[in-house]
């Protein structure tokens, strides 16, 4: 369980190819970072994992993405089931336009949990992301009133409340102030060992701090993939060396 493998994935936006022959197996219950400069296809790759990519009608996808050994693009696959097993933490925190409580409860209600259960899980999740003490007095207040960092923590609580196996983070700290970003990073680090986390980042230092496994992309191609120690210690490809030395990108 908790494994995600990509086999020979190709993605086109119209006539332009955004991903070329991607092959990678993400280690289970570890943090993998996909790094690379803007426009290299790392967000496209991430969005292909929960089939959000196909909301764009121009997109054509070929290849396989295996979730626990089963291709999520196979005909007859239930997209909704796939998406509820793969959580997403977006780049910009997006609280749903409802109360703090309802934000976390939304996914649980979809799953048909009963009221008591929902209240318990909401509290547990808000505690887990360190938000409970700050919001317990105003659970009914609109979530949009929270600060950016609080909003992102709320989004994390909302995502984890539905118990996904895989957590996708799309530059989830990029829009936050340094302190809030550090808070989210610490939370992600604490989740290591429980979830398979795949994060996209353009911040090499963040990848260095967090990742167990690193994937480096360049112009839609996967240049190098390796365990973090190896990747940062002895990068093999010239492009990788140049990128890590910040000569390109």
């Amino acid at each position, binding site marked *: 369980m908790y494994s995600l493998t990509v086999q020979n994935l190709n993605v086109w936006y119209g006539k332009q190819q955004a991903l070329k022959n991607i092959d990678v197996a993400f280690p289970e219950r570890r943090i993998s970072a996909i790094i690379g400069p803007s426009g290299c296809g790392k967000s496209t790759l991430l969005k292909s994992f*929960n089939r*959000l990519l196909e*909301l764009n*009608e121009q997109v054509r996808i070929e290849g396989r993405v295996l979730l626990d050994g089963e291709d999520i693009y196979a005909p007859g696959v239930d997209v*909704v*089931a796939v*998406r*509820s097993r*793969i*959580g*997403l933490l*977006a780049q*910009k925190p*997006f609280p*749903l*336009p*409802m109360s703090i409580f309802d934000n976390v409860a*939304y*996914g649980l209600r*979809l*799953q048909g949990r009963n009221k008591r259960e929902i209240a318990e899980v909401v509290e547990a999740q808000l505690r887990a992301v360190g938000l409970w003490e700050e919001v317990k007095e105003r659970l009914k207040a*609109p979530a949009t009133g929270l600060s950016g960092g609080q909003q992102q923590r709320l*989004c994390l609580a*909302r*995502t984890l409340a*539905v118990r996904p196996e895989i957590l996708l983070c799309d530059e989830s700290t990029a829009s936050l102030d340094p302190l809030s970003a550090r808070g989210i990073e610490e939370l992600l680090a604490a989740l290591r060992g429980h979830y398979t986390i795949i994060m996209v980042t353009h911040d090499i230092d963040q990848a260095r701090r967090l990742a167990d496994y690193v994937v480096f992309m360049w112009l839609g191609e996967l240049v190098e993939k390796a365990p973090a120690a190896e990747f940062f210690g002895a990068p093999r490809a010239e492009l990788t060396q140049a990128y890590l030395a910040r000569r390109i990108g």
Partner: protein
Amino acid sequence: MTREESLTLLTQAGAVQSGVTMQRRRLFDVAVGAGMRMLQWLVILLLLMMTATLSMRSLPILRQLELLRSHVWQPMAGRFGLAPFIAGSMAVTAVAMALATIPAILCGVYMAEYTSTRTRAWLKPLLDLLVGVPSVVYGLWGVLFVVPLIRDRIGPAVDATLGQMLPFFRQTNPSGYGVLAAGVVLALMTFPLIVAVTEEVMRSAPQQMRETLLALGATRWETTKCIVRHAALPGVMAAVVLGFSRAFGETLAVMMVVGNAPRAPTSIFDAAYPLPALIANNYSEMMSVPLYDSALMMAALFLLVVVLCFNVMARLVIHRLTRQL
């Protein structure tokens, strides 16, 4: 330009401005602002003037309120009961809104959330075209198609079933011209309007909301429902109010199919006589019947006030909804 030259350009700080140009720009800025402010006040002034004129002209009949309170319309006898016309307007609008609102909202939601970009590309202009079709065309089509349909098919069918239980559905009028015909024509007229506005409002919901909900494992319908409830509801309300205003004030198309009989309708097949039709039909033929003119002005004032009140009420509700989001 060499690289050195372009670099020297970068080092010349401070905007080079002649005082005259600056002054002219500032003057222009002030003038444009003032001009637009004036136009804005003109709009408000227009509404005030309309209300004032209608109020003043309906003052004579308001002084003799007992004339209005009558339930019959006999201008020659000095009886100006507006009640049948008010009832007619309400019946026609109610039928139209009952028929159009929910299907139109669903249709707008479908267009925004379910159709492909390509389908929308030709469906949207078509819809806008329908909004712009002149009301007389709707009226004619009502006469040629809706009225016979009601007369020959819907009337007998409804009368035989629902009509046996509820007097409201009894076919009292074999001509086909009546409340239902007008309601159907108005429903057809308001339908594209509500669809268009609903679609617009739904499309303006942030894409990230859609992605967030789907990523949480919501189905398409659950996503759509959540967007309607939590992001688009005020806009959808506005769409319905717009539809109501159009239906309540529509004159020509209604006049052509409603039968124009000054009695309060008791069945949806009854002929009726809504306020706008009353004004349009009679204003040029009042001859010199005393107070006739004033009574019609009163009818117009009533129309204006109802639409105003409805809009203000809707705005209050929308404001509250927006604040809750």
